[in-house]
């Protein structure tokens, strides 16, 4: 088998009658970091959510590690055990402490005891510099801390592919930095990442590839530096120019 971890072909999806993704082909290799860029409403979140079937595709095929994603519960469990998802709004469970948030998926998904799970959870929190916050509740933390805790939670099950949907865009500029630092740290761990983000510095420094999406189609994709510095398509160029002028 090739080094492909994720293979998406002919993916179409939408809400009600509105088609949002109009035929996406995309693959991610083991350990590869891919950044997705695109204007608001272009379907970036929908694309990410289709991968672990949080949004059900209309047609097309998604393969993770050779396994074709389908709605069968056993398959979905395996797929979701190999993908971690980080949401724009963190979506931590507010009624549980940070460490419970991180440990629970291990207990439920991997059948670990509470002690085992919390030991692993604590070590992940320690690595991400959140060790001190383990016993706090999510809403007692700053947005940046919440998002880092959410990243820890997604990492707990040791997914092969980490999906991140604009992990910094809900944060005030001064809080983004700490999350971006965490992203760099995670990127170094060798795990494949598919990230929707407009942090161009991060994309340039950490991504292998950049994919530009508009109106539900991939407009351009290629080596991160190539696309960011010398985009071939006019739409990509315009988008990047507008993004940079906003910063």
């Amino acid at each position, binding site marked *: 088998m090739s080094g492909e971890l994720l293979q998406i072909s002919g993916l179409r999806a939408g809400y009600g009658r509105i088609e949002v993704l109009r035929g996406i082909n995309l693959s991610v290799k083991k350990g590869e970091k891919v950044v997705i860029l695109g204007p608001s409403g272009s379907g970036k979140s929908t694309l990410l959510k289709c991968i672990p079937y*949080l949004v059900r595709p209309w047609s097309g095929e998604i393969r993770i590690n050779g396994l074709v994603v389908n709605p069968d519960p056993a398959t979905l469990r395996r797929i979701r055990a190999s993908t971690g998802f980080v949401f724009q709004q963190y*979506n*931590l469970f507010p*009624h549980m402490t940070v460490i419970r948030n991180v440990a629970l998926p291990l207990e439920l998904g991997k059948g670990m005891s509470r002690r085992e799970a919390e030991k692993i959870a604590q070590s992940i929190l320690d690595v991400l510099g959140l060790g001190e916050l383990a016993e*706090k509740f999510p*809403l007692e933390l700053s947005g940046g801390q919440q998002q880092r805790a959410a990243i820890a939670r*997604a990492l707990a099950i040791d997914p092969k592919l980490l999906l991140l949907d604009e992990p910094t865009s809900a944060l005030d500029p001064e809080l983004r930095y700490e999350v971006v630092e965490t992203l760099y740290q995670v990127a170094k761990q060798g795990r494949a990442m598919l990230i929707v983000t407009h942090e161009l510095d991060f994309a340039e420094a950490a991504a292998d590839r950049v994919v530009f999406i508009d109106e539900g189609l991939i407009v351009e994709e290629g080596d991160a530096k190539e696309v960011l510095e010398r985009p071939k398509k006019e739409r990509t160029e315009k988008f990047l120019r507008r993004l940079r002028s906003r910063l």
Partner: protein
Amino acid sequence: MDISRFLFQILPYLMEGIPVTMQLTLLSFSLGLALGSVLAAARVFGSKPLSVFSRSYIEFFRGTPLLVQIFFIYFGLPAVGIRLDAFTASVIAIGFNSAAYQAEILRSAIKSIPEEQYLAAESLGMTTVQTYRFIIFPQAIRVATPALVNEFVALIKYTSLASIIGVAELFRRTEYMVSYTFMPEIYLLAAAIYLAICLPTSQFSKMLETRYAIPGYKRALV
């Protein structure tokens, strides 16, 4: 007014009604909670017919007077061969009525948990049952608690309607005393007793709320 008569004769007589009032309240509230949970579940998870049934039940019991429901169960059911004593009939009527309100409280608490919580749970590989058990219900019950305690306090007062079919609870005893002594100020005494029960219950509710509140929740809402 004769204070000693008030203290040693009237007050103890009224107070004997308190356990009956509390039994009526506790039993009908529990019945309401059990039935209300089933009705809420039927609305949230049930098939179309189940959900429609539950909705009709709720509309019916909220849309007709409790007094009519008590009369119907006590005086109406014997016509079809179901004869209940006044206490049981009251518990059933008040419990069935409260079930409608409690179902709505529970349903809207479940509905108040944002879609994102389901998505997060799903993304972590939780099954539907696990999602409800560990993520949705624990949050929903906190949302519902203040309204459920309000309902409980309301029931303490509504149980006075059971006096009309002869249950010897607090208000029935009050009425009896008033007609026996011709002292309408006894109504004030009854009101004071109801207040003395309801106020601490509301306080208890506030304590529960603070104790089990999700830390930081209020701050997040503003």
